[in-house]
């Protein structure tokens, strides 16, 4: 049975900010977009931060656009767990009744939002790449990419509050931090017991992360490389480029997950991307949308990647690369 919510009793736009000692970059993006939408609605922007030993992060959220910050600091919230974070979020939401709630579409953000939507009996839209509001009705409209990004569904929830959405990282721009912005930080006490957290963390590893998403130049290897990246590495060092790969190369253990480009990996924002031996599946090319110039090299003249490239080279990468590298080396020496 769908409970009937008095929709207009819900006010305010909330953003859930993930932190690992510092706020994740998507948190700044949520604050930037959230600020714009809250102003349009004439509602306040509240940031929610859960963790342990949160320090100055509340202040940081205000500098990036929040009017108000709710901080929940508890030893059992150190490190994300579904049960711990869902319990606290559900409690805050039920007490304070926000109208809209945005999460980053990260692994943990999606894990949490999916659970909360059912607990709170409300609608949730996924991986939004555009957000708008209908001021009259207080409605959130989110654009959800479907079929690997080739189609956008514009989705709203007329019933069910808060209106929730996970938001794709790397899409919205943060505001310039402003040290003079004023806001309120409220610390909320919660009751959380160890036995309420049913998943135990056996091991957690955080490897140093090379952010290939923000590299200026990227070479992307597909299955056409046969997993042999030696030539790419040479070219990459010449161009001072990062190396990304398509998903099957990650699955085959050729490169780490952090190098995967595409809808279930990283979106590139580089000025130049050279894509070598990748066919151009829609789940992959959605990671190239924000690239300035795309160069594609592929033996198959009908490969869909050529529809997504500015410079198209039909040819075998193993034949093209050695003489290309030689030429570029000479050109570079000539510059020195």
């Amino acid at each position, binding site marked *: 049975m769908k409970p009937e919510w008095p929709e207009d009793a819900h006010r305010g736009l909330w953003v859930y900010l993930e932190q690992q000692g510092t706020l994740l970059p998507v948190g700044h993006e949520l604050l930037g977009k959230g600020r714009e939408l809250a102003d349009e609605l004439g509602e306040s922007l509240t940031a929610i931060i859960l963790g342990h030993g949160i320090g100055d992060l509340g202040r940081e959220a205000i500098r990036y656009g929040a009017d108000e910050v709710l901080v929940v600091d508890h030893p059992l919230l150190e490190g994300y767990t579904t049960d711990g974070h869902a319990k606290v979020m559900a409690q805050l939401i039920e007490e304070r009744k926000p109208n809209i709630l945005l999460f980053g579409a990260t692994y943990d953000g999606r*894990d949490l939002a999916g659970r909360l939507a*059912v607990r709170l009996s409300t609608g949730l839209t996924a991986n939004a790449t555009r957000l708008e509001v209908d001021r009259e009705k207080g409605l959130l409209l989110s654009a959800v990419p479907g079929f690997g990004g080739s189609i956008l*569904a514009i989705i709203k929830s007329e019933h069910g509050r808060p209106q929730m959405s996970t938001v794709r990282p790397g899409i919205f721009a943060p505001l310039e931090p402003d040290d003079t912005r004023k806001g309120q930080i409220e610390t909320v006490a919660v009751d959380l017991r160890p036995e309420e957290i049913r998943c135990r963390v056996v091991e957690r590893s955080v490897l140093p992360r090379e952010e290939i998403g923000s590299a200026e130049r990227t070479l992307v290897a597909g299955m056409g490389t046969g997993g042999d990246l030696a030539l790419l590495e040479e070219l990459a060092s010449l161009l001072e480029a990062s190396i990304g790969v398509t998903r099957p190369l990650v*699955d085959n253990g050729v490169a780490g*997950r952090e190098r995967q480009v595409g809808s279930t990996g990283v979106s590139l924002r580089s000025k130049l991307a050279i894509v070598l031996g990748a066919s151009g599946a829609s789940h992959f090319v959605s990671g190239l949308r924000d690239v300035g110039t795309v160069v594609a090299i592929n033996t198959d003249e009908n490969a869909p990647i050529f529809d997504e490239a500015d410079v198209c080279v039909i040819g075998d990468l193993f034949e093209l690369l050695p003489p290309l590298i030689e030429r570029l080396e000479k050109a*570079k020496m000539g510059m020195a």
Partner: protein
Amino acid sequence: MTPRIVVSLKVVPKPEEVSLNPETRTLDRAGAENVLNPPDKNALEVALGLKDTHGGTVTLVSMGPPLFKDYLELCLGMGADQAILLSDRLFAGADTYPTSLTLARAIQKLGGYDLVICGEESADASTGQVPPGLAEWLGVPQITFVDEVRVQGDTVIARRALGSSYEVLEAEMPAVVSVVVGSNEPRFPDFDRVEAAAKSGWVKVWTAAELGLRDDEVGLKGSYTIVHDLVEGEPVERKRHFLQGSLEEKIRALAEALEPFLRP
């Protein structure tokens, strides 16, 4: 313990083959080839691997139109024991809220389960919201985006693949896990078994009424989200400039195109 495993899977059109009809603003899937949602094949392989090690049973559940039946038979051919297709006109238009409710009711009706294995996300809507929603309806813990699953006694231990990092979690069963695409090599079906499944009608069909669900709890009526509009994902306009000539000429042209990006 011999785990009773449920694999929840769906069938999707190949994303490259779906287009938007700009006039009616509806999806044109008619020409599209359907496939089992790729991560769901990996989910099934995890289940079958656990069954190889521990024994137990693998039950398939899927909510969708009758055409899903053929795909469930393929999965039975891979080694699953039984399959239930949740099919009813009332289920049409479901968002993730009633989808996860419908699946949860079916799983509860099976009469006992230990582990539910899903794919990480579908290749069509890609929300990834069904696994955590399902876990909430069932009232059990969830471990999402995993690439390794082990069972020890009544505990499930799974590794979440989180980009450059990972975490290993354990929970008492029953629990729900979602498996990332490409995390294993799904086995081939035994086609004699596929044929037997088709001939003897192994796939059972359950309707909303059989799950004790009312028409306003399922499908479009049971959904909170409303599709307001469908638009083309703004295509990025690319120049599509093909370099011409011999290999040498192409290399020269390419080098010239790249030179502005070289820094002394």
